[in-house]
């Protein structure tokens, strides 16, 4: 699995679209720097699904104190957080 910012953002975007679709929403136009909860594309339960997928996919355990907008609010922030945690940034 390629751990570049672009690849991670693309994978997150695909997951966001998938989760939104399951709830009858279209998230295809959500940009990488948009705050995901603020877009309304996916709700809190969807965000939990997204984070659970994120942790499982990238073998990452996110402590509760890191569960903030600043760390995980957008796709870019999520990618940066991941790369930082993996020591790649």
């Amino acid at each position, binding site marked *: 699995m390629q751990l570049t910012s672009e690849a991670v953002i693309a994978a997150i975007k695909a997951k966001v679209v998938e989760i939104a679709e399951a*709830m009858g929403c279209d998230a295809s136009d959500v940009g990488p720097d948009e705050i995901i909860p603020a877009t309304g594309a996916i709700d*809190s339960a969807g965000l939990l699904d997204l*984070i*659970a997928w994120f942790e499982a996919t990238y073998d990452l355990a996110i402590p*509760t104190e890191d569960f903030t*907008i600043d*760390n995980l609010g957008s796709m870019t922030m999520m990618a940066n957080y991941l790369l930082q945690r993996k020591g790649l940034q």
Partner: protein
Amino acid sequence: MAEAVYVPRVNNNDDEVKCVGLAVAVGDKVTRGQIVGQVETDKAVVDVEAGADGFVLAICGQVEAVLTVGSVLLWLGQSKDEVAPVESAAPGVAGVLNATPTAKARALLKELGLDAAVVPASGERLSVADIERFVASSGKIQKAAAQRGQANDVVPDVAGELKPLKGEERGMLATVLWHRDEAVPGYIEINYDPAPWDAYAAEFGKANGLLLNPLLSLMAWRLVELACASPRLNATIVGTKRYEYAEVNLGSTVQAGDVLYLAAVRNAARLGQLGFVNAMVDLQRRAAAHKLLPQELQGTTIGFSSMARWKVSRHVPILSPQTALMVAHTVDSAGVAVLGATYDHRVINGADVASTLRKLSKPGNK
């Protein structure tokens, strides 16, 4: 009115027991719970207790006699002068035989497979109370219940395959059966203006840098506060008493894939508002990953559920075992916000619930 003390059932296999002791005589004054005699089977000796305060009017059994389970051992009256009912031909139950059953009584007779002719009536018509008294005294209620249970085990006459239930499915089955068999559920709902709560949650989330919208957790926290202020909401019935829990264990429903969990934040009040919100997030995260601990799926004392995600206009939740209140939140596709609650009418009444929902419909003072 005279009250009977019946010969008790000692075990499921013995329909007869031997009277091995009588501790009272006609005219004696007894108090509820007082031992009035003993009966035995091959396996055990048990005490027979008076079910009420009163005077012994008549004794129908004798020491060393073999008695039918459910027959009258003795009669109690409110005064010494009261006349004991005349015992009927049916063992142990006094009253008139061959009385015409009421419509409800007829339906119950049919359900239990009983003949009206064998059930004594206490009045001119055979009533449901007469039948219940008769079957309770003869152990037939347990048998009928067992038969109903067996009926559930009957495999349908259509091809299929039995699948074992998963742990959470067994838990849900227990919950639903408790709701059906133990609680006396009622349901009340109100519409409310969601704007104050939405604004409050947005401000709270921003102030604390939260990733998830804390709205539902904050509403659940408000319910914890209300339960602390009004312990009757956080209670259940044990026997004939209300059991008020010392702690508020807030159970919330979490849908994780196709699994519905009711996960409890234990002793929620100690956490404070932000601590509770974080605990809810933690619980929801682990539910989403199916990593909840067994103790987190037990011990709920009051519940909160939301189906706003599904935009339903109403949902009537099932009460978790030994709880009195489960709040149901939703916002439908037109934006109409609803707070409802299923409640155990044995513990709280409609006015309690309506008042609680009104308070819950607005953020607290914090």
